[in-house]
């Protein structure tokens, strides 16, 4: 199968975008490495406190004019951005694969999901309408006006370098706010290209800013009095920290954290249709996804269990691994060597704690093409896992399936609800009663019924419960519009 052409051909120093200008950072520089090839593809700055301050200042200065720009005019900028994203769809997708390692189908899917949020935000003239009550008392009317707040910080993770900031940014600017985006320094190219397109779409200087970096930039955002709110997606410990810091400084916050999702298999599941869904759920994006399946929980007798697991193991062992720009590849590398080491540590702990290693993804991985082993891992399956084991309770963020068993649906729900996480649990069944019972009793922000990746469309909120989410309103759709606006209520009487 042919390898698609790489869009990034030269190593360049990435710049910040502040106040409508591309500025070279004064901070240190680190390499961005393609995890499949091991080649450096860009250099990213670790920006300074002064630079984040400058971006916030630019956003604050842009805010008064932008908030008085009509919603229709603001939506036209988003329509132009949508058109530019469609025109550059393939390039943007290949950049994601080149810097992150995911397969090209996954990258294109990520691009499409990102664009869908821009499309939804294009409806802001309607989405942002308030409401009105006449005669709440004699001669008195009352109405609500959603108003923008000012400047928002958006902090993106490494696993979806293009899409996740788009869960927030289009709604923030559509509602009349200005944004400062900090992409993950591991995968800065996708947001850089997006920002170039946002610039081309005609957002006024200061409305859409981007500052690359690490902890200094995040701390700068959290401490800056000019930032009204933060949208963050990342690990649970960091989400908790950000939630707390925003509470202390009076900022609004969406803090999406990690997960440990259960995929529940009932004995009446359609096995043929379930296997591909499980492969996508557990091994798609190389398991680096907060909606990935982590624990496979099977209900049924030994005969059902054994035949089901034979099918799962056979399918997992056939997964084609390699560079995501090879169209035949079904699973790419993990993002970097350190992440691979961490996953290997979890696999070791599973063995130490007595789980049965059914499929071992360690060692020499069979790779399609000639690429270094550095970041590649094979699909791994553990059986006899219990919820107290590390591999059964902690987020591994890699291609590892931990298989458990339950006697019945009651035990399933008990096990799932005992997890501190509540991001994306799913059941596979052909029984409507089982499905209804599961979705009703489960404490999970996103619930799947015969769907392995419970990713809400852009016009639904990306929900999350317990340690998977800290905040009240979520990213995407109407909830994002509410998050990025303050409700102003007017009560009027003419005397």
């Amino acid at each position: 199968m042919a390898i698609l052409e790489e869009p990034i051909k030269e190593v360049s120093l990435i710049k910040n975008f502040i106040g409508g200008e591309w500025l070279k950072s004064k901070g240190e520089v680190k390499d961005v490495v393609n995890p499949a090839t091991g080649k450096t593809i860009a250099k990213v700055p670790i920006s300074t406190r002064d630079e984040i301050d400058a971006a916030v200042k630019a956003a604050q200065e842009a805010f008064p004019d932008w908030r008085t720009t009509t919603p229709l005019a603001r939506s036209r900028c988003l329509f132009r951005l949508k058109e530019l994203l469609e025109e550059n769809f393939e390039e943007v997708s290949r950049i994601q694969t080149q810097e992150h390692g995911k397969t090209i189908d996954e990258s294109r899917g990520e691009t499409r999901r990102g664009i869908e949020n821009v499309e939804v935000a294009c409806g802001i003239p309607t989405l942002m309408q308030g409401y009105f009550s006449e005669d709440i008392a004699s001669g008195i009317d009352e109405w609500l006006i959603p108003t923008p707040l000012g400047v928002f910080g958006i902090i993106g993770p490494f696993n979806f370098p293009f899409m996740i900031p788009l869960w927030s940014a289009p709604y923030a600017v559509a509602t009349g706010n200005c944004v400062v985006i900090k992409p993950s320094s591991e995968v800065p190219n996708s947001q850089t290209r997006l920002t170039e397109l946002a610039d081309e779409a005609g957002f006024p200087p200061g409305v859409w800013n981007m500052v690359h970096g690490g902890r200094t930039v995040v701390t700068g955002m959290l401490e800056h009095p000019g930032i009204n709110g933060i949208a963050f997606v990342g690990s649970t410990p960091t989400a908790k920290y950000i939630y707390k810091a925003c509470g202390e400084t009076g900022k609004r916050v969406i803090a999406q954290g990690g997960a440990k999702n259960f995929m529940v298999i009932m004995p009446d599941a359609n096995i043929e249709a379930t296997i591909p869904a499980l492969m996508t759920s557990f091994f798609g994006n190389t398991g680096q996804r907060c909606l990935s399946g982590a624990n496979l929980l099977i209900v049924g007798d030994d005969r059902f269990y054994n035949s089901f697991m034979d099918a799962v193991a056979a399918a997992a062992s056939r997964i084609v691994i390699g560079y995501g720009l090879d169209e035949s590849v079904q699973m790419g590398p993990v993002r970097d060597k350190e992440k691979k080491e961490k996953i290997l540590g979890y696999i070791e702990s599973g063995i130490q704690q007595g789980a049965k290693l059914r499929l071992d993804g360690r060692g020499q991985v069979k790779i399609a093409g000639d690429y270094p082993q550095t970041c590649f891992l094979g699909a791994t399956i553990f059986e006899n896992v219990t919820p107290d084991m590390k591999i059964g309770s902690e987020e591994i963020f890699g291609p590892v399936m931990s298989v458990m068993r339950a006697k019945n649906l009651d035990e399933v729900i008990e096990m799932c609800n005992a997890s501190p996480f509540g991001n994306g649990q799913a059941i596979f069944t052909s029984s409507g009663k089982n499905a209804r019972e599961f979705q009703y009793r489960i404490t999970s922000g996103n619930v799947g019924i015969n769907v392995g990746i419970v990713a809400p469309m852009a016009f639904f909120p990306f929900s999350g419960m317990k340690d998977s989410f800290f905040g009240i309103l979520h990213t995407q759709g109407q909830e994002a519009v509410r998050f990025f606006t303050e409700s102003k209520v007017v009560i009027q009487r003419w005397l």
Partner: protein
Amino acid sequence: MEINTASATISFAKKLEEDSAKFYEDLFQRYAKDEDVLLSFAKENRKNVVQIERTYYGVITDAIEGCFAFNINPDEYTLKTELAEEASYSEALDKAVGIEERMIKFYSDAAEQSRSLMADIPRAFTLIARKREGRESKLRSLKEG
């Protein structure tokens, strides 16, 4: 090597359409007959490519089984477009019918296998399979005429 991913399936479909378009163009060049039909087929093939790509890019999502949906053996569908030196026009039309039959089988199988994807994808494959059924009968009528 089997084709498993949506991306590889779309690329394979494009290749089949291109090979088939070239076959019809060569057929007209060689026999100088039925220009309107043969060249319209080639044109329609390229339209099919646009249609398939538009559908794929419009609904591709990593949340559904894009990387695990297909199980296609390309050898079963690869087109044999070479014509013998001495082949008559009637024999060439027989070959064209064979090509259309293979294409119909490919699109029907791809539609069946992609049922778990967004509905637009199997629908697009099915529509093209149906269009090609019409071609098959047209080619047979050219032969008879």
